[in-house]
């Protein structure tokens, strides 16, 4: 991860029209944005499309960014807006709110960043279950839960991204955590009962 001064320099260079700085910005945030979108949408294709859209918008409108130190939360806000627009379009098209259309059936293995078997917890089935738990959360809870727990962002940054108060963010993360605990508790007890060691 680049330091704050590096990011400021990148933004200034990109605002001056340096195309290498554009690529530098993409390289700095692409993985986090892509994973945020993938966990939010549950579909690799949709995450790719929206990552592309997010960076196109961000890089085209970079000159409107006044404080280069806010680049990360600004890009996240654009990504989040794109997701909400997609949900709105999907709702208009098929009447579903944020359903499972286009969800991946399995974790792609070829793109794993760290394949340490001790750290990477479980099998494909557990991965699917975790994604299913995320998909089952209302979008309002899902986004803050992913940002806080999966992406380990501070509540203050999350508050700036989602445009809600710190207290609201804290409460939503707690509610999402309770739901996740309940869902995973059912699943893990079932697995243990069936004699499958998922660890």
């Amino acid at each position, binding site marked *: 991860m680049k330091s704050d001064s590096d990011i400021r320099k990148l933004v200034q260079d990109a605002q001056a029209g340096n195309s290498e700085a554009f690529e530098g910005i993409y390289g700095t945030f692409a993985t986090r944005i892509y994973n945020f979108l993938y966990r939010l949408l549950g579909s690799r294709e949709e995450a790719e499309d929206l990552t592309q859209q997010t960076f196109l918008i961000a890089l085209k409108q970079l000159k409107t960014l006044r404080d280069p130190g806010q680049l990360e939360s600004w890009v996240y806000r654009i990504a989040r807006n794109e997701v909400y627009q997609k949900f709105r379009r999907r709702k208009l098209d098929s009447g579903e709110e944020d359903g499972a259309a286009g969800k991946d059936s399995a*974790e792609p293995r070829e793109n*794993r960043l760290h394949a340490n078997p001790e750290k990477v*917890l479980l099998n494909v089935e557990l991965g699917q279950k975790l994604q299913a738990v995320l998909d089952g959360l209302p979008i309002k809870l899902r986004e803050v839960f992913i940002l806080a*727990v999966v992406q380990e962002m501070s509540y203050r940054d999350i508050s700036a991204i989602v445009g809600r108060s710190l207290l609201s963010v804290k409460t939503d993360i707690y509610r999402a955590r309770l739901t*996740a605990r309940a869902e995973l508790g059912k699943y893990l007890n079932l697995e243990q009962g069936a004699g499958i060691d998922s660890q």
Partner: protein
Amino acid sequence: MKNHVSEDQISAWLDRQLDSDVSLRIEKHLECCPSCDRIRAELAAASNLFREMEALAPPAHLWTRISAGLQQMEPEPVGWFAGLVVPFRQRSWLRAEILAFATVVIACGFGVFRWSAMQTERQQLAAIDRAYHSLLPQNAESFNPFATSPWFNTESNPFANGTSETGGKSSPGSQVKR
């Protein structure tokens, strides 16, 4: 044990989002409170599973697509008017404000035009009125255009001298000479 820690505080503590003094107090409480520590363990177990989810790398072709999209961007305007055009393009609110301002200016302009047209109309009517009054005879109050009509006999004309002389004995039309 009394004064248990609330679950949302434990949740925030797990995310390391509490002030250091609050965090320290919770840690001390968890060490000596089995029920709170059990909640912490359950919440932490669920969170850890998500925290350890694999991070995926974006596909390599994605930057190529984005880069191609950026090259299709509109060329930046060059010249003295670039300072006007660029902010106008970048800020949609500016366009809205200019549109609103233009609407107000047009509405005001139309109002001023109508008002001046009405003023002119009033002035013309006043001029006509003045001309009409200037053409009237001096004794306008006793002026009777019917009294001098060539088609009426002065003697039988009921309007002659402004009063009827027939006394209602016959109708004015019956005394017309043919």
